């Protein structure tokens, strides 16, 4: 069996689509009809079969296309992948984690064989079969973090833990919602969260940091975050703002369903064993409004969430220019009836 990987694009002609099964497994982030920040962190444990939580590192039908898009971004801008000199060991930790999890969850697509520090990694979807010495950077074509994150969906930030804080000292960031690794590299937790409105006043980051610095090996945690993106672009970086920023002015009542995408990040947090760092995978899921509203509960709830969103949050998430058009479009799908509890479709 295995996954049928789609041949699709996240730029130019935007052929990205979700299959009907992938629409139903979309990680819809709203458990009630309104939204406000919370420390919505929970243990990252395996969830129901057929959900994005079926495996702790999710691989889906967009895998091959996303890896191709990542390669394009890196070819244009190599600074999307950076690792400060003391982070190489953490890179090996991440390589082990991602190879183990992908091989465990998708044995038909990935195989890891270990004989002491002699490792062999087979990645069938991307046609890779490499043997290397674990811990010896000269035996891989890239550094360990870059090597494995060119083969893993989602962005990855590796955080060094010291002085009671977390420091963004390495990362592969090509599918980001308007932030830049090149800008944030070397910053601590409070520095890189400085632009977020409202949450500081609520003391959320102080508590979140305390939680994250206490994450233990074998006990990863997760949370969902969301924003919206016009057209299915993975790379909405500040560096390329001139390419995607103007998209926001192109939303009309006629094209809302096709152009406006809900963008959900499944963020997970893992303690790394050798380096004692934390890795923070940020997995991006996109769904266009036409696909999302095939689930009537989600259509009703999203209408109420976007309509009632505080102004500061709408601005921060970049919704302001097209919010009224989107709310008007969604309102026609909201008959006012109650929505059932929980995230999932009815």
């Amino acid at each position, binding site marked *: 069996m295995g996954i049928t990987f789609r041949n699709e694009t996240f730029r130019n002609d935007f052929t990205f689509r979700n299959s009907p099964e992938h629409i139903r497994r979309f990680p819809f982030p709203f458990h009630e009809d309104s939204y406000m920040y919370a420390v919505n962190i929970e243990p990252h444990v395996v969830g129901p079969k057929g959900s994005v939580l079926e495996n702790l590192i999710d691989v889906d039908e967009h895998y091959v296309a996303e890896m191709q898009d990542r390669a394009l971004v890196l070819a244009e801008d190599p600074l999307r992948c950076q690792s400060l000199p003391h982070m190489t060991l953490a890179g090996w930790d991440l390589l082990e984690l991602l190879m183990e999890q992908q091989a465990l969850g998708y044995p038909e697509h990935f195989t890891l064989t270990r004989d002491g520090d002699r490792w062999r990694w087979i990645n069938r979807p991307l046609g890779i079969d490499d043997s290397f010495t674990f811990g010896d950077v000269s035996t891989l074509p890239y550094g360990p973090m870059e090597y494995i994150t060119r083969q893993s969906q989602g962005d990855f930030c590796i955080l060094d833990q*010291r002085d009671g804080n977390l420091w963004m000292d390495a990362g592969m960031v090509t599918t980001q919602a308007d932030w830049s690794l090149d800008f944030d590299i070397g910053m601590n937790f409070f520095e890189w969260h400085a632009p977020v409105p409202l949450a500081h006043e609520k003391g959320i980051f102080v508590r979140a940091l305390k939680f994250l610095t206490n994450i233990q*090996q074998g006990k990863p945690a997760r949370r969902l975050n969301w924003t919206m993106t016009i057209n299915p672009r993975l790379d909405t970086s500040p560096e390329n703002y001139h390419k995607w920023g103007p998209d926001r002015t192109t939303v009309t009542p006629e094209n809302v369903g096709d152009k406006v995408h809900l963008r959900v990040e499944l963020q997970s947090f893992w303690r790394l*064993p*050798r380096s*004692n760092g934390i890795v923070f995978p940020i997995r991006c899921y996109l769904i266009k409004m036409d696909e999302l509203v095939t689930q009537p509960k989600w259509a009703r709830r999203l209408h109420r969430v976007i309509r009632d969103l505080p102004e500061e949050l709408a601005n921060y998430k970049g919704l302001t220019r097209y919010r009224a058009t989107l709310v008007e479009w969604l309102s026609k799908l909201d008959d006012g009836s109650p929505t059932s509890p929980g995230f999932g479709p009815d």
Partner: protein
Amino acid sequence: MSTGTTKLDVVVSDVVPVNELVTRFHFRRRDGQLLPTFSGGAHVVVEMRDGERTRLNPYSLMGSPLDTREYTISVRRDDVGRGGSLFMHRHVRPGMEMVISYPVNLFSLDLRARKHLMLAGGIGITPFMAQTAQLAAEGGNFELHYTCRTASLGTYADVLRERYDRRVRLYHDDRDERIELDRLLSSQPLGTHLYVCGPSGMIGWVCDRAAALGWPAETVHFEHFAAPQPGAPFDVTLAVSGKTIRVGEQQSLLEAIEAAGVDPPYLCRGGVCGQCETNVIAHDGKFIHNDHWLSEQEHRSCKKIMPCVSRFEGGSLVLER
């Protein structure tokens, strides 16, 4: 459900007397699999079933992080302590099945350091056994200064000298050998990080001298275990469910509530997410708040408690649960 780390089912694979006070214990996984990888400076919590009591003591892992076939710890016998080390020395034998926690590192190497300067006192040598093994494998730059009472109590001094030769310097109290601390701290290259593990007097002395000599606080590291979660047992009345429960010494209030068949909401079980916040209806005693969720003002108000991590001492406590 329980708080803290994931547990590992292990079997004691060897017990080796090291000297008159110290014994080394080896653990392997009962299922024959490899143990989790760890980083130098990590510890595990060993659960001891001592009659009616469960003791939970943390010990540094002292093997090489590169070898996860077994974990090793060294336990110094403390004849006047709370009894954990005596239990280990008297009752733990090869073949015995035990439960230990996943490794946790609260004494991590700063991998940015150009040089690692390590100061050990007595049994405080154990985390450095793992850290030196990790650094040596990567070609790291380190220097270890180790003080012990006598040569025969210099646990692993011979092993360390053999492995690392002149990178290890020994000091014996009975020969009046002392670390020349000020000279040592004043002569380090820029980018050196300092690590100290030993008696609390030694940690205080080294940290004070380092501060006085201008070492930035971020470059000085010492082993300090997280505050213990257990505490004295106490009784609680759950007003909504109409139950009275006893919270055991090793049990959290949340666990005791769950054991009574009440199912409060929770997410993190670590005092952060706020899910299990509970209103206090009446109390006669003192709260021991260990959470990061409630504000200081809320702690002082005695109107709320986070049962996942906080405790109570006193006559009576009634909760809205």
